[in-house]
């Protein structure tokens, strides 16, 4: 029973179960006043229980000891996704988020500050909207976060060579120890600096694997998500051209999860290519002025690759 896993007191859990709330989904659709009435507890306590429940279901999805690699063609939205994640990780726990900070490692110079601001503002609006919807019964809800704060919580590193990249990955351990509220590390993009300048290919593979291991350790030790954005290249296999992740097979083994962003006709889709716990599946999404959102309208894809 999911409710048993929640970090609540035994009394609270007992009351939940006898009132019929055994699963997380039953809690997510309950309002604080319903819960208070059913459990015969105060409104404040009910609200606390709901918060714990929503936090726990969120963190199950977002927490890593996993590194996630997102690969895609130019223009598909990798950097957009990176920026969205850097903002989303900051959603406070009382809105169902992790309330953490983000490290954004930019190897290509593609991070656009104004875009981050735009996404941050949209996120705050959405949060207020969502909270107002959920907590209709309680007094109006303050999100407590401003877009400027969101920008301040993104630690931006610009890496200009593979040496700096290796150095920074090594340094992450110390940095995150001093900044414990970091909950996500985004690297955009992981292989850019390794695609040229490296003469010894076998050495390159070894160095990349070493870097991957360090990142996995960081993800595990600090319980955060590591998201690696990667480019695609064209490969000539089986008589035709196919798209594959840059630095291909040697790198691909090193990460736990892999999501491929691709064009399906006119629509952007995300495909889970590799995961220890989830089945392969695709989901459409779109890049809007508010950030990454579920795909809704008939968007016309720009025709050139």
């Amino acid at each position: 029973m999911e409710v048993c896993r929640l970090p609540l007191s035994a009394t609270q859990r007992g009351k939940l179960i006898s009132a019929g709330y055994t699963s997380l989904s039953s809690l997510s659709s309950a309002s604080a006043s319903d819960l208070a009435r059913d459990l015969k507890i105060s409104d404040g306590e009910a609200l606390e229980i709901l918060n714990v429940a929503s936090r726990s279901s969120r963190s199950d999805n977002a927490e890593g000891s996993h590194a996630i690699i997102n690969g895609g063609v130019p223009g598909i939205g990798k950097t957009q996704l990176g920026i969205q994640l850097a903002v989303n990780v900051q959603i406070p726990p009382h809105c169902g988020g992790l309330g953490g900070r983000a490290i954004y490692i930019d190897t290509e110079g593609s991070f656009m500050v104004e875009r981050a601001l735009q996404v941050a503002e949209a996120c705050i609006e959405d949060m207020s909207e969502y909270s107002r919807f959920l907590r209709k019964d309680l007094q109006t809800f303050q999100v407590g976060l401003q877009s400027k704060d969101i920008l301040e919580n993104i630690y931006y590193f610009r890496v200009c060579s593979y040496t700096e990249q290796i150095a920074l990955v090594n340094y992450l351990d110390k940095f995150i120890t001093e900044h414990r509220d970091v909950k996500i590390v985004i690297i955009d993009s992981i292989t850019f600096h390794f695609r040229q300048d490296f003469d010894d290919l076998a050495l390159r593979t070894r160095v990349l694997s070493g870097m991957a291991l360090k990142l996995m350790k960081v993800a595990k030790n600090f319980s955060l998500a590591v998201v690696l954005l990667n480019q695609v290249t064209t490969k000539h296999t089986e008589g035709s051209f196919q798209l594959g992740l840059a630095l291909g097979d040697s790198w691909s083994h090193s990460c736990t999860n892999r999501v491929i962003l691709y064009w399906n006709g006119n629509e952007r889709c995300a495909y889970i290519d590799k995961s220890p716990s989830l089945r392969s599946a695709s989901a459409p999404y779109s890049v809007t002025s508010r950030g990454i959102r579920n795909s809704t309208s008939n968007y016309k894809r720009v025709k050139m690759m």
Partner: protein
Amino acid sequence: MANKLISEIGLPKSIANIFAARNINTAKEALSLTEFELMELLDVGMADVTSAVAHISAVVSPPYQTALFLMEQRLQNEQFAGHLPTRLKGLDDVLFGGIPFGVLTELVGPAGIGKTQFCLKISLLASLPASYGGLDGHVIYIDVESKFSSRRIIEIGATSFPEIFHKKGMAQEMAGRILVLRPTSLSEFTESLQQIKVLLLQQEVKLLVIDSMAALISGEYDQGAPRQHSLGWHISFVKSLAEFSRIPVVVTNQVRSQSRDEICQHSFQAHKNVETQEGTEKYDSHVVAALGIHWAHSVTIRLVLEAKSGLDDIINFDGKKMK
């Protein structure tokens, strides 16, 4: 930072000597080896290697800035918060003010659509004084196909900004700020890049235009690996020029036709397409941007110019968000 000398990093004397004895003199050399390899090469224990590497890494790592600090810096120090307004309202809105500084902006479209005209206009805009929405600076225009026309620039100027251009000597001064280079081969282009770097360091240049990148490459090599590699260096160099000097860089690219078997997909897509082949809505055009996927990854903003039947040219904005 990559070339920082081990001797200057401040490692304990003993380990620094061992590095030197094994001819590892820069941070780059030290970090290019795995810790295991270093252990074997230096013949020291893992703990010593780990702490040496941690020390080197901490020194060589780039510093961080918060995104907020970045934004405030640009608002304070740069014109238009780091943008060159194009005066095309819809475009400027979507681009947060104009062509961004510090990154590559690509202009793609078929022949005759107006890429060179756009380049001429933007060059003029950059040379205008700040009070007229310009950057008050010099422009370097790399004109590969000899399409640049000074007369046309003055014509655009006189029509769009009559108040400036009819003042005595102003037309000459504005036009005089645009330096046109005409490399006839890739190697000449490479040389001129070095020249450009020097000019940028003198901080007079506020815009770099390359018209067109594709024309530089075509005719140099046949299809294949050598072309990719040489282009890779130029791309990196131009990108770093842009970023280092915080100027906008506009590059034009051509289109080429794409044969059906060239259409690239991921391996997992192949299965799905077999069924939907007949009913699939094909794109109207079988054209793709030239210069390939590596180039496409390197540009930050791609502006696609296309002609809609019956209407004026519409600029589609790819790479950031959709309209």
